[in-house]
């Protein structure tokens, strides 16, 4: 944790309210996001219990699996989920704008510009917490290799046709969510804790109710009191007033309410199956419907508070203006969405179970680049984030006290003006360190030339910098390209833009050190039927 984050947390403890750690919003928020609050069944991996899902905060769609261990009901749930999510994803797939992309021409091997489509907007999924995000990943993994009737008409228990497609999309969103700064799929607790520091640990911040209690405590309560209530307060029946944001449910709920309700449902179902005439069946069907209704009400009662909390969190985030470079990062998300849309349209197989060596290395390189980009962009977008970097000695701000014109040596002398900056910050400047400032959105580099006078006079440091670029081609620097005396400037020790990494070999050319080429690509077979499938 950075020093400024620690200080913000201490301040949150002493004031009883979360402290802002950002002055702008560093993630894109769609005007029309799809919120998904999933619940899972205790003790059964990947068995959904239900979900609230939708784009309208007043009219979420409730999906429930009354008997989570019943595979048919689970498929019905997933098919319903696909019916909500896929049309939402499709709604952005049609509107496109023309864009250019550099590609390698397969014939000449040259890099050429090609006209491609870029979706004008991308669908955004929001889940309450990181655990919810992991759960979507798990659902994606469990669905994308499902066998449909089309693939194998003979075997019983095929999955509904749209399930593998939903699995591929959830997998794509889950992978994209691992890219720092991406906003296709957001866990609300993570976005909120990026923008506010609470007086509790970051582990406790993963409780959406407690986190919101710190950021926006009800009434005159302090954040600590409100958070404690959110975590612990129970009603007369021993149920949590603020149910966990899921997907895991509270054991007290499971034991006292859910398990008996599911048992009643099972009994009603057995009874219906054993009905001997139509009249009896009618009665028993009514009992079954009532039992199902009861479970639906229970699931809604546990998801609805989280659903409302998610939208309240989104309101809090929307109150912040969007950072200047957020749009640029969202464009990358749109590229990501468009790319996967094209792969699906082209009939490519689902994402493999495991990445090959080259794909894994490429993904890691992309994520590291995006992480560095995100850190730089957040600091440039937000003076409060920059203050944290300044406190850490990674940037400094101050006033220009002197500018002396100088020139490089050589046949064609170029301007290398020496700029003296008075700063109260204490940057960790090594000899000849490169520093950067933002000049009309582009980074201008300078070289640390030394301190003027003794560094410790109580008057701040006098840092002498030699500006080395972005001054035009002429002998005299272009107007405005060199800071002037009295200007307020901010230089960073980190680079503003990231260089692209080296191109890795194609997967077919994987070298011997990494196991050689993966061999002929075999489309992964759909999951086979196992005995557990028809328990």
């Amino acid at each position, binding site marked *: 944790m950075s020093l400024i984050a620690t200080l913000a947390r201490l301040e949150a403890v002493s004031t009883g309210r979360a402290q802002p750690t950002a002055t702008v919003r560093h993630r894109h928020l769609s005007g029309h996001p799809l919120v998904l609050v999933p619940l899972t069944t205790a003790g059964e991996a990947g068995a959904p219990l239900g979900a609230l899902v939708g784009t309208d905060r007043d009219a979420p769609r409730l999906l429930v699996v009354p008997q989570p261990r019943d595979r048919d009901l689970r498929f019905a749930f997933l098919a319903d989920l696909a019916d909500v999510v896929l049309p939402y994803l499709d709604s952005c797939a049609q509107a496109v704008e023309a864009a250019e992309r550099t590609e390698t021409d397969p014939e000449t091997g040259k890099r050429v510009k090609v006209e491609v489509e870029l979706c004008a907007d991308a669908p955004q999924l929001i889940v309450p917490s990181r655990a919810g995000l992991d759960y979507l990943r798990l659902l994606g993994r469990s669905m994308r290799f499902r066998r449909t009737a089309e693939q194998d008409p003979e075997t019983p228990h095929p999955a509904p046709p749209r399930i593998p497609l939903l699995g591929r999309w959830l997998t794509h969103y889950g992978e994209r969510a691992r890219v720092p700064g991406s906003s296709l799929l957001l866990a609300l607790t993570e976005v909120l804790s990026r923008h506010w520091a609470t007086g509790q640990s970051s582990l406790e911040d993963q409780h959406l109710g407690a986190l919101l209690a710190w950021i926006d405590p009800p009434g005159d309560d302090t954040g600590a009191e409100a958070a404690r209530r959110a975590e612990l307060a129970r009603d007369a029946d021993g149920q949590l007033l603020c149910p966990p944001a899921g997907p895991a449910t509270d054991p007290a709920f499971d034991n006292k309410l859910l398990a008996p309700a599911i048992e009643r449902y099972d009994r009603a179902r057995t009874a219906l199956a054993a009905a001997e005439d139509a009249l009896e069946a009618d009665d028993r069907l009514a009992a079954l419907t009532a039992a199902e209704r009861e479970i639906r009400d229970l699931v809604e009662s546990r998801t609805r508070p989280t659903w409302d909390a998610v939208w309240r969190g989104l309101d809090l985030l929307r109150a912040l203006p969007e950072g200047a470079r957020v749009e640029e990062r969202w464009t990358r998300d749109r590229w990501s969405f468009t790319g996967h849309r094209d792969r699906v349209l082209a009939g490519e197989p689902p994402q493999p179970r495991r990445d090959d060596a080259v794909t*894994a290395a490429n993904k*890691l390189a992309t994520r590291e680049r995006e992480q560095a980009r995100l850190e730089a962009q957040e600091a440039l977008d937000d003076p409060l984030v920059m203050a944290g970097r300044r406190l850490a000695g990674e940037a400094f701000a101050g006033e220009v006290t002197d500018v002396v014109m100088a020139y490089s040596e050589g046949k064609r002398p170029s301007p290398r003006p020496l700029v003296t900056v008075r700063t109260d910050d204490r940057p960790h400047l090594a000899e000849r360190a490169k520093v950067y400032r933002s000049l009309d959105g582009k980074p201008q580099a300078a070289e640390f030339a030394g301190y003027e006078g003794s560094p410790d006079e109580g008057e701040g440091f006098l840092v002498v910098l030699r500006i080395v670029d972005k001054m035009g081609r002429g002998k005299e620097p272009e107007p405005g390209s060199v800071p002037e005396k009295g200007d307020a400037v901010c230089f960073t020790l980190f680079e503003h833009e990231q260089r692209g990494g080296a191109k890795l070999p194609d997967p077919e050319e994987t070298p011997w050190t*990494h196991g050689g080429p993966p061999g002929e690509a075999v489309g992964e077979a759909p999951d086979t039927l196992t005995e557990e499938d028809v328990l």
Partner: protein
Amino acid sequence: MTTVDFDPGAAAARATDAILDDTLHSTARGVVVDSPPGAGKSTLVVRAALELADAGRPLMVVAQTNAQVDDLVLRLAEKNPELPVGRLHSSDTDPYDKALDGLANVRPSAKAADLKGLPVVLSTAAKWAHVKVDEPWRHAIVDEAYQMRSDSLLAVAGLFERALFVGDPGQLDPFAIVGSEQWAGLSYDPSASAVTTLLAHNPELPQHRLPVSWRLPASAAPLVSDAFYPYTPFRSGTGHGVRRLSFAVPSDGSGPDRVIDEAAQSGWGLLELPARHTPRTDPEAVRAVTAVVRRLLDRGGAAVSERSPEPAPVTAGRIAVGTAHRDQAAAVRSALAELGVADVTVDTANRLQGREYDVTVVLHPLSGRPDATAFHLETGRLCVLASRHRHACIVVCRAGVGDLLDDYPSTEPVQLGTLVKFPDGWEANHAVLAHLAEHRVPWRP
């Protein structure tokens, strides 16, 4: 192996001969050499390079940093000034050490095509990754291979047919700035070390080990070997009493002076400050580090060793300060500047890898911390800090690290399919701490 008839020179020579024999004549595509700290890894790389060049095999050398590449170029030129050597460098300003410009047979260039046909071409892994060739090099030497990431090897492995991989498994593992648990357990996990991936796919490759540390004194080799290389022990090249440290000015009885004397006597010293939770740049600990350095210089240290039987002065250039974090290094640097000390190297463990000094002063990674994270417990970090010295190592630390370790046992999740590294940082920290406790000088500044 018994202590009586162990001849370090002969043992090291046997190992080197076997390595060179495999490198030049083995049919295997790769040879892996594990080298403990200061075991003559660079010397081996230079010798192998010269022999491969002599055998007429075009050679590329991959190192991890520009400083390492420049160092190898200088060593090559020193051994064989006639050998034409290519230094492939980036197109940044000042991409390589200016000392290379003075060497007639070294050709620096930013383009690989300019260096075509030279017997040896050296560069960093990052630069090699951008090189495209029609015909791969017959041979490569990959230096510091344990510090190279698997994905970085993936980018350059297409450039050579066979290779000698040299490195120190006990030093810091490579790291990624984003999570990579997703690939944990895969043989080609891109965030693992290059050697891990290489051996996972090619387990039959010959593996060698250099058995003697020429850098570490007899007082340090057993501790470093036991704590960090329990299954691959090594010895010091010199015996007890060969290396001696003495001071012209006698001790004034202060904590720093007493710890200096203790370290001069035994090779180790622990200056223990009162227990306290502090920020990373603990001002008292920083002052204690700088006081020790200042006194080391003021007392006119002189070192006797197998290299110089006459006492050689321990100058600022022969002293280093090691820290865990960059802000700690920066704090020590500015505190030293205030005391008027210049030319003492102050750096983090990452940057001290591969370097050697007479005396090192280490700010213990866990000093003053309320918790022990995986970063601070990493075996390699402590190993680097505790194995840079030829004579003595002085550790500055707050009391209570032992209790801290007991409060924070390693709880890293176990990933299926990954190689569990032994010893873990927790155990290594305890081993080092137990040894340092015998050389403890409590001090309240």
